[in-house]
Structure formats: C-alpha cells, structure tokens
C-alpha cells in the first residue's frame, strides 16, 4: 500500500467533490461524474455559498436526507447562460446553408439540447418562420433543469438585453426587426406566444437519457464543453443515433472534437460555425 505523505495528499476539496458526486448519484440518480471537474467545482462553491453552508460536506449531508434540496442544487449546477442569436454568424450559416436542405423534407424535426432559458429556441423559431419553414417544423427543446425549462416556456427576458438581441438578429440575417416578435413591459420583453406553437419543452438529461427523437437538425451549443471526454463522446454517439441520414449537428463555437471517436461520423460543412452533417450510415 502506498503511504500518503504531505507531498501527495489529495486536496480536501477534491475528496469532498467526489463524495458529493457519489451521494447525488446514488441517492438521487443525477450523475455528474462525467462533468469536467474544474468548472463543476466552481459552480458547487457558489451553491455552497449562496445556501449558507460551511462547506461542500455539509451540503452533501443535508442533501442525502432532504430530497427537497435537489431541484435547487441541479438548477445551481446548470448554467442557463445564453443570448438570443448568440454568435449571429452561426444562425446566418444555419439559415443560408442548412435551411435550404431542410426545406426538402415534408416535416422537419429539430432537437435543441440544453435550451437554457429558451434564447436559442425562439431565435430558431423566428428564422424558420421567416424562411417559410416553421409550419412544418417541430422543435423539441430539452434541458435537464426543470427551473430552466419553466423559464424557457415563459419566453420573458430582461429588456436591457433587447438591444444586443436586436443587433444579433439583424447580423444573423433577420428580415424584419426583432421588435416585431415581442412586447415590452416593466423592464421585460415577452416573446410572441405564437412563436411557441411548434415548440415542445421537455426534460431530458444528456448524461442519462437515450435517443429523444428522430431529428433532421440537432443544435447543442456550449453544453458538451461541460463534459469530460468520455461523456462528450457518448453524447455525440447519442446525437449520431438520433439524426436521420444526412442530418445536421450544430455545436458551440469553441468546441473541440479532437478526442471523440464518435465525431468521425460527422463531416464539417461549415467548420467556423461548427455545423456538421451525418455521413450516410454504413
């Protein structure tokens, strides 16, 4: 047996993190073992802080005995940070390079995984509407945080974001003005209810749940960055199995597929916008 000396003692925080992850998994079924640890640790620190706990061990102990804490913890670990038309050039690429090909399908299924507060899914709905494709589209917007899904369903955003969202919309090639799609009141903007008519919000955990639908386009931006190589690869496999032959996948702007064997199934069609196409199945 190797001895533990002052030089090779594992960090207290790493041991606590291990214990927390195991407790959450065994007791409540949420598996965070495939998450990248450094950012998970940071988010947990802020959950510990805002909950007024002494340290992570105290939170772990409480959580083991109190189911009611779990939704709060999960929503604290989820990162529902997004923007409408975030990285406008990506939406422009979808509109110009992917939509014309989607147009050949009589019915279009789109899966947006990790939908945060809905910023991207409404962006997509608007562009589909303007391309004349929305009537035959169904968009499945999923997330593993119920709190995020509730917010997404409301379609309400702070008015101070409207300026950026409008600029993004125009940069993405929007044909009207974003104001055509929302009403503002009390420092909030509320998106047009009609945009929701073909959007279905649902809870889906990428780390645990299986194929969700048969999709022509999967949009999953800035979610896999939180996963380690193994989980990233598994989820890419899930996307591969969920896409129709020749279907499209769009990832976040800075995601690297260099260590994911499952990425071999995808060919980049616009590398800068991180848009890929599933090669025909063997």
């Amino acid at each position, binding site marked *: 047996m190797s001895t533990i000396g002052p030089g090779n003692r594992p*960090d207290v*925080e*790493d041991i606590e993190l291990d214990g927390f992850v195991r407790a959450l998994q065994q007791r409540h079924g949420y598996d965070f073992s495939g998450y*990248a*640890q*450094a*950012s998970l*640790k*940071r*988010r947990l620190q802020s959950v510990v802080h805002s909950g007024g706990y002494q340290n992570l061990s105290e939170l772990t102990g409480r959580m083991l005995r109190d189911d009611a804490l779990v939704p709060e913890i999960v929503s604290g670990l989820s*990162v529902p*940070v*997004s923007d409408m038309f975030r990285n406008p050039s990506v939406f422009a690429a979808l509109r110009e390079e992917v939509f014309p090909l989607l147009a050949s399908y009589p019915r279009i299924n789109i899966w947006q995984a990790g939908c945060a507060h809905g910023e991207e899914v409404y962006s997509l709905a608007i562009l589909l509407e303007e391309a004349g494709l929305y009537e035959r589209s169904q968009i499945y917007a999923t997330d593993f945080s119920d709190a995020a899904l509730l917010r997404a369903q409301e379609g309400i955003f702070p008015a101070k974001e409207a300026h950026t969202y409008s600029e993004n919309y125009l940069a993405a090639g929007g044909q009207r003005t974003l104001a055509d799609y929302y009403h503002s009141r009390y420092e909030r903007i509320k998106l047009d209810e009609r945009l929701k008519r073909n959007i279905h919000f649902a809870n889906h955990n990428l780390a645990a749940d299986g194929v969700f639908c048969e999709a022509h386009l999967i949009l999953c931006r*800035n979610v896999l*960055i*939180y996963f380690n*190589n193994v989980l990233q690869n598994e989820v890419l496999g899930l996307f591969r199995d969920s896409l129709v032959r020749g279907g499209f996948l769009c990832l*976040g*702007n*800075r*995601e*690297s597929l*260099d*260590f994911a064997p499952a990425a071999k199934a995808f060919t980049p069609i616009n590398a800068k916008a991180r848009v890929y196409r599933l090669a025909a199945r063997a």
Partner: protein
Amino acid sequence: MTTYRAVVVGCSAGGVHALTTLLAGLAPKLHVPLIVVCHTGSEDVDMLREVLALKSSLPVQEARERHVPQPGTVYLAPAGYHLLVECDGCFALSVDARVCYSRPAIDVLFESAAAHYGAQLIGVVLTGANDDGALGLKAIRDHKGMAIVQLPEDAVASAMPEAALRVAGADHVVVLPDIAPLINHLCMP
C-alpha cells in the same frame, strides 16, 4: 528550488501594450506554457493574437478546450469563454456567468490553475481597471505558488495590481520591463 510548470497572466486596460513588452522579453526556449486572460470585449481574439505574435519570442495561440498546454507556447483565452485548467491538466472552457463583469475572468483561470499546479505555478497580474485577478492570485499564494504583480505606479491602469496587492500580496512587485527576465530566471531548468 521549485520547478515551475506554468505561468498564468491576467490584464485588462492597457493590457495589449503590457503583454507585447512581456512576450518580447521571454526566453525563446521557455520551459513552461504561458496562459493569458486579457479582457478585450471583442468578438474573438484573432486580432490580439496577431498583434502579440508580431513581437513575441514564443508562438501565440488561442487555447483549445481538451488540449494540454505545451511548454514554450503562449495561450490566449478565447473571447466570451472562461478558460480553466482541468484536473488532468487540459484546458476547459465554460460560459458560466461573468466574474467581475468579465468573461473570460482572470480569477477563474488562476483558481483552477492553482488547484492543478499547486506550488508549481507563477501568477502575474498586470495593468487593469478592475479587481479581477485579486482572488485568483490569492488562491495561487494559498497553494504556495509564486505571485508577481506589476508595480501599480508603473501600470497604465493601477486598480488591478492594487487590488491584487491588497487582497493577495505578492512575492515580487516589479516594473513591466523586469517581469520577463524574472520569469525567465524563475523557470530556468
């Protein structure tokens, strides 16, 4: 003597000029990676990378997630993402909320790097107009790493080095031209 394995650098207002000076003075055979967060507010760091590469004695790249930082290379945090060092030593990115109004934030890089490299890390805080980096530098010192802060009077914007000194203190408080030689010396094989 400690064998250092990485240098992390943070700056904002006035940072481009400061980085240019720093990178020009580094030994071309530096044995460690230099990982940089510079608040720019622009869409990407391509321009910054090109400007810095002109005078730098080391290659300058944007950090890529899941890749291991290589010795003798300068890495810039991509615009709009926090850059972290994972427990396996690879780069990781996040779009978590801004820290000190910033993403990328210096604190996020420094704290994660401190957890990974422990005492074998050098943290450098340069010119800047807010107090990002102060808590990060404190984490580095708590892990027995080395802290270098630009002399506030020498900085274009003194708030950032001042905050770092107030919160974390430093092992060396020096003027900009002395920072590269100091790093070269500390990282000699």
